[in-house]
């Protein structure tokens, strides 16, 4: 038993759990799901391989519409999250000091420590017809009767942005933190105005954080189920909702698997595009945050 053999043995012992995990729980299930999605039901218990399920999804306007809507709203939610989070991240990274800084940062992490279910529940209590905001407005005399803020796209948006805020703030704060303050000072010193400095110094420096945050927020929104269903109500169409109903309510797994793959492809495609445009890699983005 030489040292080399021992090292080899350890390597195999470390490799096997990895392979078991990644192959049995991730890779093979997805291959299996793909196989299922290209299986067409001709008649009960008779199947044929083909793209029929996909064709059917794309020939049904309501599905295409939902896919489109889900993607667009996710992009919008991502942009909105970035817009809202950037000033706050900058404040935490560059303006707040000492205790205030770590306190604010910890507060941004707060929603993560609470179940998504609880977060959505909180919004429901705030937004619904009998909810806090509606009651407050009536009490203040601004409206005459109860107002329903729930069950519309704006509510979904509020929820999505809220849920993913953390994943934007953390990478932003960490990249902005590393921005050398003398660069900003030099920018002003050389006669740049606030916006010029922001555009030419701060944002380019924060780019890796921006990309990382956007990718994560986008994926979380696209794959979200709870927020659109609970805040958007019955009429709200979200792609994961279709997947759920095909699988669990209608028990049409072949069709559902096709839905799943379309969602996966959409998300990968958009993420790939974003990475391509910004010149980052997946490993550098994900592993950092």
């Amino acid at each position, binding site marked *: 038993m030489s040292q080399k053999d021992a090292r080899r043995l350890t390597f195999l012992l470390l490799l096997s759990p990895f392979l078991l995990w990644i192959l049995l729980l991730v890779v093979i299930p997805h291959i299996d*799901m793909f196989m299922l999605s290209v299986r067409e039901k001709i008649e009960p218990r008779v199947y044929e391989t083909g793209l029929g399920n996909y064709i059917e999804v794309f020939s049904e306007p309501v599905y295409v519409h939902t896919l489109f809507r889900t993607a667009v709203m996710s992009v919008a939610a991502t942009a909105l999250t970035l817009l809202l989070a950037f000033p706050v991240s900058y404040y935490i990274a560059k303006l707040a000091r000492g205790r205030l800084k770590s306190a604010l940062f910890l507060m941004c992490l*707060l929603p993560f420590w609470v179940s998504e279910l609880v*977060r959505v529940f909180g919004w429901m209590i705030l937004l619904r017809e009998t909810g806090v905001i509606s009651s407050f407005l009536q009490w203040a005399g601004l409206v005459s009767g109860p107002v329903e803020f729930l069950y519309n796209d704006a509510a979904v948006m509020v929820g999505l942005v809220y849920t993913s805020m953390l994943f934007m703030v953390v990478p932003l704060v960490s990249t902005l933190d590393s921005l050398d303050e003398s660069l900003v000072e030099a920018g002003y010193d050389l006669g740049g105005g606030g916006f010029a400095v922001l555009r030419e110094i701060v944002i380019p420096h924060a780019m890796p954080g921006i990309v990382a945050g956007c990718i994560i927020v986008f994926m979380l929104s696209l794959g979200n189920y709870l927020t659109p269903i609970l805040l958007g109500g019955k009429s709200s169409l979200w792609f994961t909702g279709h997947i759920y109903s095909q699988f669990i309510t209608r028990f049409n797994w072949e069709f559902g698997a096709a839905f799943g793959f379309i969602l996966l492809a959409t998300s990968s495609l958009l993420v790939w595009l974003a990475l391509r445009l910004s010149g980052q890699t997946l490993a550098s983005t994900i592993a950092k945050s």
Partner: protein
Amino acid sequence: MLPTIPQSALVRLTYRGYVALFFIYLIAPLLVAATFAFNDSLFPSLPWNGLTFDWFFNSTQPKLGLFHDPNIMRGIRTSFVVAVFTTTLSLLVGTTNAFLFERYQFPLKELCYVLMLMPLVIPGVILGISMLVFSSTIANGLEDSFGFEIEALRPGLFLVVLGQFSFIATIATLVISARLRKFDRTLEEAAYNLGGSRFDVLRTITLPYLKPALIGSGLIAFLISFENFNTTLMLVGSDSPLTITMYDRMKEGSTPVLNATSLFLMIGSGILAFIAVLAQRDKSKPAED
């Protein structure tokens, strides 16, 4: 904009006001969800009917308290069991993965690394359905060819654990790898040189060094598992973890017992967060010198 650069008072105030609003937005839903746990009313909404602890401790309908609600208590127990298994598995595989990727060079390592990151990029719903599809394929295959039925491969807690583990393992791997990367390997060589066996060295030097990361990732894994909804929803059988139970209640519209449960979850997370911070502090000490 920096503390060192003069700004008009108006700009400064507006900025501060915005940051304050942002944090109100962050806190409001959590605060509301927690507060209504103490409202003496059958619905979690205004008007405020006075303070009560019934939603925690009362044992009779219609104001059945959290600690006497059999469904919720069962949900908490189920979630706890699931989280314990998921955390254990994730820590084991996270640790072996960290050693594999930090200590060994092997063919296709890049590919394996990307595969390792994959579960974070795949929406939870899809992880759930692919697992569902694959386990059914196996179960059906076994049933058709050998005629025996394996209950564990049908939707239920076993699949829930596997489904959650499939992506929590990635998170554990990343956290543990980050710490292992900072480890000074000559410490291991020194211990080996002083007569320790490989196992001794692992037990007395490397694992103690990794301890803060193990505790930290263990807590995070536990929390994520406890809170997980998307993956769980697709794989759950007759025993519902807490999030599923709460979701069902929420759809129906429930008494403030849900608020009490939410507060209970927040306090639980707070305790975990506190432990995590303590573990983190321990970690920074030797690294600084």
